[in-house]
């Protein structure tokens, strides 16, 4: 496989980005999903709609608006500047924020559904056994909602890896900082360097396939213990 150093750098950056985004998304999306799953507030529909909204805009366009918002004159930009962080576009953390906005619904929704499916009873049982809210979350909600968290992780991670419209717009394809694999493949394809594009795509596909296969197979094994005959 003739991967250049540049290709390798983008792979590492992509993994770093996707991992960061996925972890942060899980941390951020879980309380949102939890709240959405449990609340009876009228705000629920509103928040759900807001979370899903970024999806309907083309990523480049979303990226464009994020670029405006995070730029020196945008609301977010003003805020980050006031914090002394400078502006986010064209930095790794800018990519992180933008990817999070874009992949949020893929992480919130499956977790929310999984939490809803658990119902109240296991939580009630845990409470009567003396488990506080956090304890309940980690020992009851998390394991019982595992399929939802798995799905959220896979969709969130893969979507971040594959996304590039937004990344290109916010990141500006700066080698080592914001040029991720998707942008690199795109560049190869656009530059008609098909051999390189194929090689890099191939690596991505094979690598992702192996990871996904391992994930799914592991998940299947775990469940086989619990539900042999599905009583």
């Amino acid at each position, binding site marked *: 496989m003739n991967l250049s150093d540049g290709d390798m750098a983008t792979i590492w950056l992509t993994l770093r980005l996707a991992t960061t985004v996925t972890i942060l998304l899980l941390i951020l999306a879980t309380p949102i999903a939890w709240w959405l799953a449990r609340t009876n507030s009228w705000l629920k529909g509103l928040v759900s709609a807001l979370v899903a909204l970024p999806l309907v805009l083309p990523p480049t366009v979303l990226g464009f608006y994020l670029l405006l918002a995070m730029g020196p004159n945008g609301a977010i930009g003003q805020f980050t500047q006031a914090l002394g962080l400078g502006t986010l*576009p*064209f930095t790794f953390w800018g990519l992180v924020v933008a990817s999070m906005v874009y992949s949020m619904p893929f992480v919130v929704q499956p977790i929310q559904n999984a939490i809803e499916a658990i119902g109240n009873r296991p939580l009630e049982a845990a409470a009567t056994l003396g488990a506080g809210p956090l304890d309940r979350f980690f020992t009851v909600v998390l394991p019982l909602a595992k399929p939802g968290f798995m799905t959220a992780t896979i969709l969130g991670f893969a979507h971040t890896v594959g996304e590039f419209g937004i990344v290109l717009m916010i990141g500006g*394809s700066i080698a080592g900082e914001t040029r991720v694999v998707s942008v690199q493949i795109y560049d190869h394809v656009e*530059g*008609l*360097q098909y051999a390189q594009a194929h090689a890099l795509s191939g690596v991505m596909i094979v690598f992702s396939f192996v990871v996904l296969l391992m994930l799914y197979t592991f998940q299947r094994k775990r469940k086989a213990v619990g539900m042999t005959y599905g009583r």
Partner: protein
Amino acid sequence: KPVHVAVAANFGNTMQRLVTEFEKTSDYQIALSFGSSGKFYAQIKQGAPYELFFSADQAKPDALQHDGLVIAASRFTYAIGRLAVWSARPDFVNKIESTLKQGTFNKLAIAHPKLAPYGVATLEVLRYLELIDATQSKLVRGENIAQTYQFVSSGNADLGFIALSQLLGKNKVPQGSYWLVPDAMHHAIKQDVVLLRSAAKSQGAKAFLDFMHTHKARNIITEFGYLAPNRLTMGQDI
């Protein structure tokens, strides 16, 4: 620390060659970003850390100049694009005008006129040939000339107006058949470069701009299918 250069996608391969040559003789490193000119415009307005911007047209440098984000004096036309009609099938382009007129092809791929100057030029050619109406129903538009090329190369479109540079790149042997569109059929596809105001003091950027004026650079540009302007004047017609 390298010089950040934003390059219109169509010039990507050429630019890589140029950079390789430049870095042979210079201590400066060049970091390239490829993309569409429109995107670069938006990014530069938001403070993108580029030092040089090689646009695919003159419109974006104009707009940036109007916004006061570039050093006006630095601007010049670095290349003039050339159009070709290409088919992945051998001999298909032999009698191109009649082929176009008779519509004996499935699709005609062009670059999106709104997005790519090659698209604008293509329309001018079709208008010149009075083929606008005849081809209207068969046009498919690529986001840029790279996509236009892919429409043709994958066999999905029999014909396409692409950049000559795409056929002549060092590492490719042109397949099929092509017709080089006479330059007289359309306005020149002038591609301008500008030095961004934020990089006014960048020695590396200046060195690279200087390199662009060298014979070596101009030879490469020509070799890749562009016209290199005779007199490299700032923003003026040749």
